[in-house]
Structures are given as structure tokens and as C-alpha cells.
């Protein structure tokens, strides 16, 4: 079960550097959106980096929200009112480019086109999801801290990949 989640773990490490570097959260367009963003940040961020909605199209987010009882191998079920707030926030701020996702794995950020077409290479590893994620690259738009921070993120990522 944990293998299925490793790609996400890797994405978390990538995005951790980006999120800690940017103090400002994604721009919320309305007071309701802002409230929903708080729930999204608290609930999704309880287990991993709260992945920004624009990383996936709304169809992918809707599938994820429909199946929180089996969320990449773990139970992330949540009370309906909170789930509705999160779903609204994801829907309102989702990517407008549905073709970016992997056709055979549309829920996995680490398989989406933007994640898999940048220039940083990671060592190849045995194993399915981990291997594909390890080949993936961190786009500059996502890892945007200072040079020192960037190096840290990369070395943390690589030690994770090789552990």
C-alpha cells in the first residue's frame, strides 16, 4: 500500500521547498473561497503539503474527493461539510488544462505532464511508482527558493529516493 503512495511522497518533498519558500498562499478570489482555502490547507496539509488546486484539473480533484476512503492507499475520509468546502475550493481553482494529466493515472500529480517534463534528473530506482517518480523532474516554477534552499530540497529529495 505504501508503494502506491511513494510518488506522492516524492512530490511532497519537491513541493515542500516551494511552499516554504512562498509565504503567500494561492490567491483566493472571494471571502467564501478564502474560508474554503483555510479548510483545504488545514485538512489536506495535515498529512502532506496541501497541493495547490492548479496542479490538477477539476475532473481529477473530483475523483480524489469522491474516494477519500482510499486516498492513494490510506483512509483520508472527512466529514461531508468539510469535504464540500475543500471540493469547492479545488473546483474553483483547478487547472484549466485537463490534457496535462497522465491518461492512465489522472489523479497522480507526479505523472502529470508538467511534473514529468522539466530538466532535473533523479537516479533510477527499482519499483513502479517510485521509479517513475524518481525519473521525474522538479520544474523551476515549483522549486523556486534561494540557491541554498534549492540545494537542500534536492539533496533531501535524492536521499529519499535512494533510501
Amino acid at each position, binding site marked *: 500500500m505504501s508503494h502506491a503512495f511513494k510518488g506522492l511522497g516524492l512530490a511532497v518533498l519537491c513541493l515542500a521547498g516551494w511552499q516554504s519558500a512562498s509565504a503567500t498562499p494561492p490567491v483566493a478570489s472571494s471571502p467564501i473561497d478564502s474560508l474554503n482555502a483555510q479548510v483545504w490547507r488545514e485538512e489536506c496539509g495535515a498529512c502532506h503539503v496541501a497541493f495547490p488546486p492548479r496542479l490538477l484539473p477539476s475532473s481529477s480533484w473530483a475523483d480524489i474527493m469522491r474516494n477519500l476512503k482510499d486516498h492513494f492507499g*490510506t483512509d483520508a*475520509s472527512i*466529514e461531508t461539510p468539510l469535504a464540500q468546502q475543500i471540493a469547492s475550493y479545488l473546483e474553483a481553482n483547478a487547472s484549466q488544462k485537463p490534457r496535462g494529466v497522465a491518461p492512465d493515472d489522472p489523479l497522480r500529480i507526479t505523472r502529470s505532464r508538467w511534473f514529468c517534463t522539466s530538466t532535473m534528473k533523479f537516479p533510477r530506482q527499482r519499483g513502479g511508482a517510485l521509479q517513475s517518480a524518481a525519473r521525474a523532474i522538479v520544474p523551476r516554477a515549483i522549486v523556486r527558493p534561494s540557491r541554498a534552499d534549492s540545494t537542500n530540497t534536492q539533496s533531501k529529495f535524492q536521499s529519499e529516493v535512494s533510501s
Partner: protein
Amino acid sequence: MLRPITIACIGLLSASLASAGPNELLQSWKAAAKAQSPTFTGFSAERGRALYFSKPADWSCSTCHTSDPRSVGRHVVTKKDIKPFAPAANPARFTDEAKVEKWFRRNCRDVLQRECTPAEKGDVLTFLLSEGARP
């Protein structure tokens, strides 16, 4: 305009209304356990410890909360730090009933493939409280 002292009083009142505590949760689970089983006699730290370390499938509680629930844990998949589980090391634990029930529901399903009974939740909390007394 509200005086600061009034605001402080309102704050304290709302905090006391919103927060439960480990003892209140134990009382509530005890009543539920008795209702479920007439033979229920009380919670056991030993049973709680056994459940905490049991690994029926991929994970045990200790996989993420570590073998010492007073220490900082780590999510085995996302690698995110988890604040200490035992109230002695983290007084905020077991003060929000909705949060407690949410996490027991999720994590018991992950570890045991079913939800925990009120008796099991009480056993685990009794074990965690006993860990606070351990040097």
C-alpha cells in the same frame, strides 16, 4: 467597544466549551463500551499497548507514532512530522473530540481494516496516559 477583559472572558469561555480532555473522552468511551458489552470491566493500558504495537497488515500505530509515543512521529509515506501522540508530551492531544474520532476512524481502518471499538480507543488512550508516568 469591548474591553480587553471582556474579550478575554469570552475567549476563555469559548475555549472551555470547545475543549474536552482525555478524561472526558474516557468517560464517554466507557459508557459506550458498557452499552456494547455487559462484561466490560474497564480499560487496560496493557491491552492498549498490545493494540498499539500490533501489526495485522502493513502498518501498526507505532509505524508512524514510533515505539515511544512521547516522541515526534513521522508519516511513513509522506514523511511529514507528527506531533507526539502521548498527552504528556503534547497537551493538545485528546482535547478536540471531533479530531480524535476522525483520526481513530481513519487510522484504525488503515491498520486494522475496520474501525476501533470504544473499548479499544479507551485502551489505547489509557496506554498513552500511562506512558506519561514512565520515566
